[in-house]
């Protein structure tokens, strides 16, 4: 018998105690695959960052002069650009996460059979889910850092730095849900359904104006939107107005992330381990 590489011995004690250990050997190698794939497509990465920045600059030039000041999180007046920038970041974190976990995941799952190949190794469905979602978050994170740098130039609040972890959380929540949804799609044309869901989220999650402009009867609808929680969280952080309601926003996003990971893992298991 030939000797094995020392890195693949029986799992350690912790992995044996945790039932998770059976299914996850470390999503790191799944992330590594994505890094290799994208090592030469940095042009796409640049465009992913450019989009929200272009928005931001457009708002600064256009609405900045037109709208002037609006009521910010604590009720104090803020520049419109300072008001809308955190929301744009939240929306772009959402869009990036959804983009990364829908078509590419669908392609790997249904056509390229990348996950089938992974499942023939010690990796399990949870590794795949966590690995792919992590990659989306890492990529989204790179965009947010760049965005925040530009934003600090425009808005100038040091609190803006807090937006980076918040943007990661928003990415995580939407990447999880996006990947879970992708496992249910059967043909590329069905991506239109996802686009159909994302569009109203983008427009009506208090992104461009405060939730107070909606009549009471529909306000709850806005508050159901997961992006709304991201927008409120980030707007508050950017203004430096910390509020207990933020715990609720974080809770909603974290819960979405957890549900998404669990659902994705189950679906991949059900589809590929038949």
């Amino acid at each position: 018998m030939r000797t094995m590489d020392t890195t693949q011995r029986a799992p350690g004690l912790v992995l044996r105690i945790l039932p998770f250990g059976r299914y996850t050997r470390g999503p790191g190698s799944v992330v590594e695959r994505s890094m290799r794939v994208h090592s030469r497509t940095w042009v796409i990465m640049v465009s992913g960052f450019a989009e929200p920045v272009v928005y931001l600059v457009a708002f600064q030039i256009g609405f900045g002069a037109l709208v002037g000041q609006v009521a910010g999180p604590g009720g104090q007046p803020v520049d419109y650009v300072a008001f809308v920038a955190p929301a744009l970041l939240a929306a772009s974190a959402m869009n990036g996460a959804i983009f990364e976990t829908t078509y590419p995941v669908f392609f790997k799952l249904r056509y390229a059979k990348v996950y089938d190949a992974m499942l023939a190794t010690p990796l399990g469905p949870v590794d795949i889910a966590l690995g792919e979602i992590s990659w989306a978050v890492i990529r989204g994170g790179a965009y947010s850092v760049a965005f925040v740098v530009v934003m600090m130039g425009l808005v100038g609040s040091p609190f803006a730095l807090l937006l980076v972890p918040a943007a990661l959380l928003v990415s995580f929540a939407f990447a999880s849900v996006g990947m879970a949804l992708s496992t249910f799609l059967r043909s590329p044309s069905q991506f239109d359904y996802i686009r159909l869901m994302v569009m109203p989220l983008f427009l009506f999650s208090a992104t461009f104006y405060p939730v107070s402009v909606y009549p009471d009867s529909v306000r709850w609808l806005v508050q159901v939107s997961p992006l709304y929680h991201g927008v409120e969280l980030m707007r508050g952080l950017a203004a430096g107005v910390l509020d207990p309601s933020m715990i609720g926003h974080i809770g909603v996003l974290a819960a979405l992330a957890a549900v998404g990971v669990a659902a994705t893992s189950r679906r991949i298991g059900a589809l590929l381990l038949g």
Partner: protein
Amino acid sequence: MARDGEGDEREPHPMVSGKALVKRFGGIAAVAGIDVEVRRGESFGFLGPNGAGKSSTMRMIACVSPRSDGELRVLGMDPETDGPRIRARIGVVPQLDNLDVELTVRQNLQVYGRYFGLSRAHVRAKAVELMAFAELSDRADDQVEPLSGGMKRRLTIARSMVNDPELLLLDEPTTGLDPQARHLLWGRLYQLKQQGVTQIITTHDMHEAEQLCDRLVVMDGGQIVAEGSPSNLIGRFSTREVLELRFAPGKQDGQITRVADLADRHEVLPDRLLLYADDGEATLEAVHARGVRPVSTLIRRSTLEDVFLRLTGRSLVE
């Protein structure tokens, strides 16, 4: 402690052992209760027509498809509970290539090795070794998509060895390979066997089964219809020689009734008659003596193909 018999040298556990193993898809039993045992170091074959349940069995052994019923142990462990540990020690060549089309040849090997938790340095060296093995060194940094079918197959096989597996599962490994590549692969598999790697191979190719397998089972309709070494199966289920008679188109009908009694057994195929006898030459003389005039005749040794025909009533080569 050693409940699984793992590492117990006196009575080593079989590499694979299945008892009354069943795989159902909805109502259909793709594998309908089979008993198999694969011993360490042997090359074991699953032979059978399309839909016999070969791949379904392989997937259960590879721990990517839970069994519906019966017992299964792979490397002395239960796939249900020890899937990742088992998969860490086996190599899998699926029936259909699933190479990573977003990566190069080299990256395919390296990234796959990383899925096993192997170190970066290790997989870097391993990839070079395996590309040489698969004769793909000059395509190392090419994308996978433009490779020929045979090259892809070779890469898939090379990939399955990245973790130095003790057990290799090869589902129709040579389908789509040209004769040269096929002989190359047979040579490599023989080499691995010498190194003690146990192999389980499915195939439609009788010649391949005779070349590679120490022992094989013939499957049909989810069941095992015969088991043994190639020569043992031929001895049990066929005669020493076979006489093949070909007739001009449309002239074959009715001929069999004139010669059937000359042979131990016969088969009527769409394009020829097969007469099974220990002495083909003598049988051919007797055929001629009866005034039967085929356009061509062939006397050959019995092969697994004949065993298969006998057992399933069907030819493997469509």
